[in-house]
């Protein structure tokens, strides 16, 4: 399966706007939202009730059985995540801080620590005819987002019948992004023309390089700062990165999004620009190998 991943480094540059339009334009039969921290793709795809839903369990988390605890403090000393504290004279695990390493259970001389299965989010799968959409929602304040991203992609691959998938990624360059990169054939970075946008673009490009995945770049709202848009295009040609187009600032884009539509569903300048970007991106993906 060929996988096209949409990333951005900086948040709010228009990943989901581009991804949702790509899905409509390409009539993609498999797609996923890997922004498990703050998923939005379902809002543009007219999805309400998922056909399948399951709990996502991260790593088991520690629980101290108070009746066996001899209050020696060894667990607290050994925990490198500051997840064990003393509450009313009792050693207690702060679930939000616990990473599930089980070192506390290892060092406890009285076997007072058990590792318990803990839900860390929800996986959702939408199926309609031969179209599969996989998404998830991480529980608030939870870690393990990388693991959940991997599950979202697995869920999609297990149900998909097509050989092409579009994946909406998350902002940043950390674990959910790294997990989403695994197995993708091409990354399209949606950048924005600002000093922040260009700095974040460089860091996401470096991240893609570390994992050796081919990358293309487009600019959203390019006309809000022509000078920096030119700089971004210059940066791409210098680095030998495919530059696939510019999307204009478009009031109609916000209207489409707020109506639960994609920019490809209405006649608007940004929609037309994204159509062209899609055909260039798809060509790059097909050229691969």
């Amino acid at each position, binding site marked *: 399966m060929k996988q096209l991943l949409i990333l951005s480094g900086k948040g709010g540059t228009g990943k989901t706007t581009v991804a949702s339009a790509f899905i409509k334009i390409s009539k993609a039969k498999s797609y996923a939202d890997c922004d498990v921290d703050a998923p939005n793709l379902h809002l543009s795809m007219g999805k309400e009730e998922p056909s399948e839903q399951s709990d996502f369990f991260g790593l088991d988390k520690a629980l101290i059985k108070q009746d066996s605890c001899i209050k020696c403090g060894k667990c607290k000393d050994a925990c490198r995540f500051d997840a064990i504290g003393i509450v009313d004279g009792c050693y207690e695990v702060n679930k939000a801080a616990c990473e599930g390493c*089980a070192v506390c259970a290892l060092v406890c001389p009285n076997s007072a620590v058990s590792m318990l299965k803990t839900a860390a989010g929800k996986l959702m799968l939408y199926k309609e005819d031969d179209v599969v959409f996989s998404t998830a929602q991480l529980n608030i304040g939870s870690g393990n987002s990388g693991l959940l991203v991997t599950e979202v992609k697995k869920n999609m691959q297990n149900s998909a019948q097509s050989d092409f998938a579009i994946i909406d990624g998350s902002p940043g360059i*950390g674990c959910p992004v790294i997990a989403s990169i695994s197995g993708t054939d091409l990354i399209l970075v949606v950048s924005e023309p600002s000093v922040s946008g260009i700095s974040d673009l460089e860091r996401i490009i470096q991240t893609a390089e570390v994992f050796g995945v081919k990358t293309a770049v487009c600019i959203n709202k390019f006309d809000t700062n022509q000078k920096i848009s030119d700089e971004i295009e210059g940066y791409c040609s210098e680095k030998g990165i495919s530059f696939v187009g510019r999307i204009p600032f478009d009031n109609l884009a916000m209207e489409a999004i707020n109506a639960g539509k994609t920019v490809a569903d209405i006649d608007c300048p940004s929609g037309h620009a994204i159509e062209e970007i899609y055909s260039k991106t798809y060509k790059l993906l097909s050229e691969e190998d």
Partner: protein
Amino acid sequence: MRIAVLSGKGGTGKTLVAVNLACVADYAQYIDCDAEEPNGHLFFKPQNTEEKIINRLIPVIDETKCDLCRKCVDFCRFNALALIGNKIKVFDKICHSCGGCKIVCPQNAITEKEKRIGKIISGTSENVRVETGMTEVGESSAVPVISALLADKIDVETVITDCPPGCACTVMESIKDADYCVLVAEPTLFGVHNLNMVYELVKAFKKPHGVILNKCVEGIDIAENYCKEKQLKVISRIKFDKELGKLNSDGEIVSRVNAGYKAMFADTLKSIKEEVSHETASDS
């Protein structure tokens, strides 16, 4: 007073708000916890910068002592160790530095070495002490960098924390010590959906909070209506303004170049401080 600025959705104007709130204070410390993609320093262009390297510990296997018993491999919940051929291999990138393998090894064959995972850059920009966390590219967790950033407390009245997007572990770490959380939202369906998530987060952590609505456009009331429905206090509304957008995209600090915005952010900071003193008064 520690004020955290967060948003759920990226690109709603967290950094705009955080940078400007710091600038209108008499003296402030600005802490950029978006260590994966830090941007505040691009606006402040801090002077006299100093760098502090942040390391974490990664296991090293002494092959002369290791008898390939696999206890470390079996113990590691992150699958960061594997027995390949006749060697234990450590996968640095997925190691969480819990230290368990070292404890469990019966041969004492495991020691730890420091691995660079990021840095903190500190400097000054007029009335603001600027601290920036920056992870190494390819490093999966920003949490250790954020904890190191927030551990270094200096004695100033106003501390502004610029949080990462989302509502996962990095955000939680960033708001841990906050006295007040500012939720920045934009009037889009996505903006409101993500505002709801950070609202749930600050509620769960019992943090006093208020909303700043950014990019407000007349006639689009989706975020405003949400705040009304949830009875969320709207501290300030920033109108959609192409000029503001342009200044911001060029890395200018609007409150330092535009008197109107300076007054607006000064009012906002005052409202926040009043909110916090109300909270403290009602707590005691």
